[in-house]
């Protein structure tokens, strides 16, 4: 009966348990609301609301599920302007445990190579406390649409790269083994790999939870760690931002209308059926073989 004695002792600091997961997220403008100035052809950014890149939410949810199942910690990490703190706070409200924002003028103008450099450096800093088991990212962002930052991080950190993952079939923390389903052309690859790994999560693979009241309250007050390039551990600023970006955008422009304007079908005084017939006549006049394509035997 020595239980009470043990209880009386100073409890040892608990060893960190479970998974150490980091989810990289990006704050993006709600693309549905971007407008281009009709005359100057410049982006009208004012008043465009920002959101967490929708693809990142599938990564966040998957990370939270793993944490709920295996215990551990989910950190959300973002690079962006100071206002990107909002996106991180929203992620805390959804259940992430802590948040880190790396923000520095030196990061401005980063292309995907420079972005993966900055994020991988910050991840290295986070891993100093405790090794990271899984880094999650979304499939791509809705503003850049490149899908290149995830693979860039994996390569730089030497993580096993698992992209377009639709499901995590199993995870064995002791063995550091993971089995995932990866979307590929015409099917799904079932892959067995090892931790640490980087997973880019496919869309529509889960549904982001509603944050609990506790999480929402905590998110409002929780600190978001704000790191400069130096805090993040960047030793060589030449690898950041515009200077660290091998690509250069030389020209931004709106496409010109086709030289030949669309031929408009006259509609005045015509019933829909007549318009339909007129349109079909025009179609068949332009491409006489269309009719044969339309009536070809179907499989």
């Amino acid at each position, binding site marked *: 009966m020595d239980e009470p004695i043990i209880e009386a002792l100073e409890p040892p600091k608990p060893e960190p348990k479970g998974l150490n997961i980091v989810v990289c997220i990006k704050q993006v403008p709600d693309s549905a609301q971007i407008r281009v100035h009709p005359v100057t052809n410049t982006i009208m950014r004012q008043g465009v609301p920002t959101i967490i890149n929708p693809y990142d939410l599938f990564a966040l949810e998957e990370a939270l599920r793993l944490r709920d199942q295996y215990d551990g910690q989910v950190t959300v990490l973002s690079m962006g302007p100071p206002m990107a703190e909002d996106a991180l706070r929203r992620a805390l409200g959804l259940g992430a445990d802590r948040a880190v924002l790396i923000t520095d003028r030196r990061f401005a103008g980063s292309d995907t190579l420079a972005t993966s450099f900055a994020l991988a450096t910050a991840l290295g800093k986070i891993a100093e406390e405790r090794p990271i088991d899984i880094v999650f990212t979304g499939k791509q962002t809705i503003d850049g649409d490149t899908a290149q930052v995830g693979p860039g991080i994996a390569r730089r950190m030497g993580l096993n790269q698992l992209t377009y993952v639709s499901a995590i079939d199993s995870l064995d923390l002791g063995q550091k083994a993971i089995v995932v389903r990866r979307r590929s052309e015409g099917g799904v690859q079932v892959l067995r790999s090892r931790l640490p790994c980087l997973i880019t999560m496919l869309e529509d693979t889960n549904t982001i939870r509603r944050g609990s009241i506790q999480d929402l309250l905590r998110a409002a007050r929780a600190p978001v760690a704000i790191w400069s390039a130096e805090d993040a551990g960047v030793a060589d600023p030449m690898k950041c931002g515009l200077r660290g970006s091998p690509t*250069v*955008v030389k020209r*931004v422009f709106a496409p010109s209308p086709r030289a030949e304007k669309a031929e408009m079908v006259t509609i005045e005084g015509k019933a829909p059926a007549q318009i339909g017939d007129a349109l079909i006549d025009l179609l068949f006049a332009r491409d006489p073989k269309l009719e044969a394509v339309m009536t070809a035997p179907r499989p």
Partner: protein
Amino acid sequence: MAEAPKPPAASRAGMKKELPERFRDYKDVWVFIEVERGRVHPVSWELMGEGRKLADKLGCQLAAVVIGPKAETTKRAIKQTYHYGADVCYIVEHAALTDYRNEPYTQVLTNLVDTHKPEILLLGATPLGRDLAGSVATTLQTGLTADATELAIDDDMCLGATRPTFGGTLLCTIYSLNHRPQMATVRPRVMAMPTPDPSLSGRMVWDSFKMKEADIITKVLEFVSDNTSKDANLAYADIVVAGGMGLRNEGNLRLVRNLAQVLGGEWGCSRPVVQKGWATADRQIGQTGNTIRPRLYIAAGISGAIQHRVGVEGADLIVAINTDPNARIFDFAHLGVVADALTLLPALTEAFARRLGARALAS
């Protein structure tokens, strides 16, 4: 590829430095040939057609890169690369390369680049190509433009890759000025399929595989084929009908499906329709969805944002139906009708059914 595209860095672009010494001997245009389970992805041939034009402009060779198992299917792919214009084919064959895996493929392609030094490297913007391109570009520390919609050689003999930016509202042209190779991925159907010439042949260059299966961490346990041939094959359909927000609600997508069915075509939709949850992402047409090159494309109630435009511009004949006479879709459509899709679609479906049905009876 700019993740958040920078404003045109005029000063930086203007002070274009001499290409660093170590890149001076990089030449030739390379296309990575995507062979999965014995099948060459058509985007590889589309890229060969484009690569041929770039190589001719540069006055260099066009090379294909084929990575795979030592098998009949690999041999066939190699032979075909010449039909599609390759002067030379770089080949690495090994059993460990049977299925695509990031680690060995990155190693092989990076080694080939380091050894043979191409100035341009193109890959398809498929799940495989994007997975591989990101790794290879990071390893080589070079520039990579994702989802280019146009490739051109400028006066300085550099590759300019154009792609939509700012959520598909504008286009931008991206250069990798002082790095080699200049890399880009291109989505399927963005470039036209060239006609193969079976009389052509070329040089073969083999390289050895330097890893061991035991060193490769990730293993493929299984491949589960989709086996859903009835799944949308929008990208390669001859006739496509699509609907946008002008349809006003999810139920009205039925009007689009009905017309597509009568025409023996496929149906799709614009990005906002997917964002609204009215249709699944595999039906989306535009830069971030399917790029299509049908013989006939009918867009109903679609305004014609740039990200949509770049996905459909390869169509031979574009018909736009929109209530707004100033809609941008009329800037690139061939035939236009200012009408409400909700009334015109059923009328058009009926008119087609009448005509095509009559023809079917007559024949």
